């Protein structure tokens, strides 16, 4: 076993609003700044955080897609000193439901969602092309597989391809709507996925109401044994900070994946090599009516002032879990 790298991840569980590029950008930049001040190597955001989810037929408007790409440029410019994974629409040759992998002022790569949900409330085949590759990103020396929402619900999906190609951490950015009993289902399924693939899962869900859907937050960090390390709050914004001790990524990557049905190339993309220095400091130590209340709030902005960033500062968590877990007791 080589020297273990510590990856400090901040999961920004934000309430993005469809079409509110200015508002969403503001939330994203505030969370990046907060994550930076907390010494995070990587800050993650939900699926399509830049444009809101689901944008439905707005995606058919070229102006909507080009505006969203313009705002991505502003996120890139705000990313000095750390890595960012943020959801947006990649309109080039697509459109694709995409995640931008950004580091220190540069767009390092773009991941395209492979598994497009087309059941229940979802219609993604109507809008998006399916991605064709799932690289493993080297972030602060650690192998990180980035994928999007539905990608993680398939046993032989991108997670197994990325895990078998050197990813020790899976970052899944998600917009998973609430229904009665869903939170438990997610926890159970993701724990199994983490165990089966021997990876840590960072599952960053969206929060907020959008038309008939409520995104309930409940973002999760699950260790490679399937144990819950951290959880975002339910029905409210949150910034969840965790330190993950992961073995450095081995080999050169880019190998043809073996086993399973995965068929996507898993190229190795170096985002950042060295762990960034962390400040030597301590940080403070996670229902139906709530879902309906949240959606009511979302449709009545004139009655409700959204939580400000300073309010959300209070929500920053430092979750100390049982001994032996990956979060160290400082």
């Amino acid at each position, binding site marked *: 076993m080589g020297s273990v790298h510590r990856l400090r991840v901040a999961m920004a569980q934000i309430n993005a609003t469809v079409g509110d590029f200015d508002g969403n950008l503001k939330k994203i930049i505030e969370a990046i700044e907060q994550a930076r001040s907390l010494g995070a190597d990587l800050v993650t955001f939900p699926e399509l955080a830049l444009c809101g989810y689901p944008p439905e037929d707005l995606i058919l408007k070229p102006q909507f897609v080009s505006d969203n790409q313009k705002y991505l440029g502003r996120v890139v410019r705000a990313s000095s000193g750390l890595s960012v994974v943020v959801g947006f629409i990649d309109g080039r040759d697509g459109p694709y439901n995409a995640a931008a992998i950004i580091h220190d002022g540069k767009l390092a790569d773009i991941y395209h969602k492979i598994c497009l949900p087309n059941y*229940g*409330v979802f*219609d993604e085949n109507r809008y998006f092309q399916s991605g064709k590759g799932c690289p493993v990103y080297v972030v602060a020396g650690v192998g990180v597989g980035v994928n999007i929402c539905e990608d993680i619900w398939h046993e032989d999906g991108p997670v197994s391809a990325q895990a078998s190609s050197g990813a020790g951490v899976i970052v899944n950015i998600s917009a998973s*709507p*609430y*229904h*009665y*009993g869903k939170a438990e289902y997610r926890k159970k399924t993701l724990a199994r996925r983490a165990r089966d693939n021997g990876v840590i899962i960072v599952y960053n869900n969206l929060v907020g*109401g959008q*038309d*008939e*859907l*409520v995104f309930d937050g409940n973002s999760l960090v699950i260790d490679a044994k399937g144990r819950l390390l951290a959880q975002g709050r339910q029905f409210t914004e949150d910034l969840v900070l965790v330190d993950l001790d992961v073995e450095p990524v081995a080999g050169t990557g880019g190998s043809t994946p073996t086993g399973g049905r995965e068929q996507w190339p898993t190229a190795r993309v170096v985002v950042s090599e060295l762990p960034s220095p962390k400040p030597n400091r301590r940080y403070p130590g996670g*229902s*139906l*009516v709530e*879902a*309906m*209340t*949240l*959606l*009511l*709030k979302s*449709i*009545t902005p004139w*009655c*409700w002032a959204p939580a400000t960033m300073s309010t959300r500062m209070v929500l920053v968590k430092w979750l100390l879990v049982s001994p032996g877990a990956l979060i160290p007791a400082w």
Partner: protein
Amino acid sequence: MVIGLSGGVDSSLVATIAVDALGAENVVAVAMPSRYSSQGSLSDAGLLAQNLGISLMNIPIEKVFQAYLDLLAGPFSGIESGTAEENIQARIRGNLLMALSNKFGWLVLATGNKSEMATGYTTLYGDMAGGFSVIKDVPKTMVYKLARYRNSVAGMELIPPSVLAKTPSAELGPDQRDTDTLPPYELLDSVLTAYVEEDKSVEQIIRQGVDPEVVKKVARLVDASEYKRRQAPPGVKITTKAFGRDRRLPITNKFRG
């Protein structure tokens, strides 16, 4: 927000949720009693408004209702009073709520539950009128559970116990009860779960041991109400399969099964 408060459990729960979400100062309740409204319902509406700290307007609809009956006396003559007369009351109320909405910029919250939306036991342009339908994906049996849950959180009888104890009634006709038209809600909701959420066939549900006549009737009601649901305000997805994006069935549909 403006809510028609009948003194029944659905509007009581919706008013409570609205107050939780937006604060009492942003919620207005309106009682619109007709000749069929019970004294108990009126006092329950008053008590709930008091418990929630919201203002309650009282706009009796008797005069308008009578004017409608007089106006339609010619065309309706010789035909027994029934659903048309019942629904006129619901539509007067919908109309009044929309007038308040226009005048004051309030959003009308519709108060129908999933059991009603499923079976069409709801009045188009009446109690279905509104901008947002908070509990449209909450079955009636769950409405009771949520109301009790909310009371337990409050540590008091926020929603008056008489609201939870009374026999469900639309109070649109003399001595009317929901069970005049629908099976008891425990039974109805179990059939609806199987037929709507689980896509089970009429035959499958009968094989589960439910009275064949009940299953056939409920399935017919659900299928025939598709045109109503298409015109309903949006509301929060709560169950695994909500009406709307989650369940897209044709209005023109001869399939029976």
